[in-house]
């Protein structure tokens, strides 16, 4: 006898086409994406406007001949003063220039990611529309995965394009050797870092959205979480991505592209000297060579630890890598939470 009670199973489970779910995502979140584009657009117009002016001014500096002449020197100095800001006084009081703008842009990835990410799932949960969305043929996992992945990708691409614009805007000062690319306000806006932090903020906010079930509360908690993580990374974590090089010498090692991490004095037997160990006679001496003379006679060596400029991309990829990994994990966790969430 053959089995009669066999369940009729369709040969192949048909699935709702992704194109349609993509349209749903676009229709529901186009306002948030437009907001993101507007924010980046306003900042982008400023960078483009100032960048064009700056680049044409810098072209004149670059073309100045002979390079060492007083005329050229003055031209460069006035260029720097106008666009890079004064060297004296606090950076904050000097208005918008190439030194202050990067600091302002540091806040953008987190704001952008949180603003777009928090409502994606939280809005459905707080308004009850998840009861509609999760009972359609598409199924909640496919629905959530499509939405989160598409929005994350769109936002990341947008952020990356914007940071490329910043890199172009800032390039004259790197060419001029004013700074390395390692200070936090530059590292965060160059390379892949800006896009990676935008992605992380989106993932954190989307995940918190499904856990907290309130869009505004999720935004606030995500904003705080991401800010703490970003500051901790800049202050304490980033310098440990690779073992710094340690060298001795009288002058800072590497070129201006290096990231100087530490400087100390070492005695002949390997003991460390601190500023308080320097004799008062040397500290108070009017002779500019007194310090170097003291080092020589006491057999004391100056040590430096630094990250060479050539490690910039290595550092970018390490940070981009863990941010991408953590974001993927959070998005997967958000989808898992949608799957598990009971009405």
């Amino acid at each position, binding site marked *: 006898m053959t089995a009669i009670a066999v369940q009729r199973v369709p040969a192949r489970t048909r699935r*709702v086409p992704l194109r*349609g779910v993509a349209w749903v995502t676009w229709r*529901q979140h186009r306002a948030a994406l437009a907001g993101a584009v507007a924010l980046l657009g306003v900042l982008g117009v400023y960078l483009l406007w100032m960048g064009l002016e700056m680049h044409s001014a810098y072209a004149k500096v670059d073309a100045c001949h002979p390079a060492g002449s007083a005329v050229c020197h003055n031209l460069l100095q006035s260029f720097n003063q106008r666009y890079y800001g004064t060297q004296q006084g606090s950076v904050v009081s000097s208005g918008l220039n190439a030194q202050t703008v990067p600091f302002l842009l540091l806040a953008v990835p987190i704001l952008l990611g949180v603003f777009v990410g928090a409502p994606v799932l939280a809005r459905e949960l707080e308004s009850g529309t998840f009861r509609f969305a999760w*009972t359609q043929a598409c199924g909640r996992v496919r*629905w959530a995965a499509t939405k989160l992945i598409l929005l994350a990708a769109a936002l990341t691409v947008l952020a990356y394009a914007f940071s490329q614009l910043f890199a172009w805007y800032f390039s004259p000062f790197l060419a001029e050797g004013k700074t390395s690319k390692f200070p936090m306000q530059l590292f965060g806006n160059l390379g892949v870092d800006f896009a990676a932090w935008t992605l992380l903020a989106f993932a954190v906010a989307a995940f918190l959205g499904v856990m907290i079930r309130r869009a505004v509360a999720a935004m606030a908690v995500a904003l705080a979480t991401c800010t703490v993580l970003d500051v901790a990374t800049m202050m304490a974590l980033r310098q440990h991505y690779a073992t710094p090089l340690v060298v001795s010498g009288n002058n800072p090692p590497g070129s201006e592209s290096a990231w100087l991490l530490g400087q100390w004095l070492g005695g002949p037997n390997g003991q460390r000297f601190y500023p308080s160990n320097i004799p008062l006679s040397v500290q108070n001496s009017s002779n500019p060579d007194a310090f170097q003379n003291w080092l020589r006679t006491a057999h004391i060596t100056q040590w430096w630890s630094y990250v060479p400029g050539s490690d910039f991309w290595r550092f970018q990829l390490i940070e981009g890598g863990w941010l991408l990994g953590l974001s993927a994990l959070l998005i997967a966790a958000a989808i898992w939470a949608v799957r598990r969430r009971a009405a």
Partner: protein
Amino acid sequence: MNIIETAGLGKRYGRTWALRDCTLDVPGGHVVALVGPNGAGKSTLLNMATGLTTPTAGRVTVLGGVLAGSPPALDRIAFVAQDAPLYKNLPVTDMLRVARFLNLRWDAERAAARLSRLGIEPGKKVGALSGGQKAQLALTIALARRPDLLVLDEPLAALDPLARHDFMQSLLSEVAAEGISVVLSSHMVAELDQVADYLIVLGRGQVLVSGEVSSLVAAHGVGLEKLVLGYLREASMEVAA
């Protein structure tokens, strides 16, 4: 074919059981009324049958043995949740498109014809519709999915008496033409007379009675409303005793 089958089904929220030890076989081809006071476990039962909630105990299958919430179950069951949740900020046309793109089966002509018959403007925002129109839109979307089973959770609760009447009339005429099974929950028994031909009474998280209205009425010699009230009163006296 049984449209809903449960065995020892239970759902606990924290320490309280919203539904306990529920064993049911609901045959297809009926308009099933799921009645009981607020908090009786009606929504919990429907949420588990539609796959929104997973059971704490027991199991539930739909449409002749299909696991609730599985892809074929989602494809073949249309659910209108309580308060008919829809995207308020979308115009009616875009709301229909969202539903179309989230489903495999979609009868666009039927949806358009039904909306024009109801006088619902396609360009209007969902949030600007009246309660009755919103309920009708949700029903239109559910019917355009050409479901084998239509589940409605408290479809009448937010409607005024006239809208209730219109909603039930249009539901019945559509269902009669299609021959699809319907399960609807309500705490207002009077509205279900003349509509439902199968009755399930829930009280305090348990099934009090389940059966065809005609045989229940014949056995007790009273109308549907009195019948339900009788079961509920009996259940509350048992608890008191």
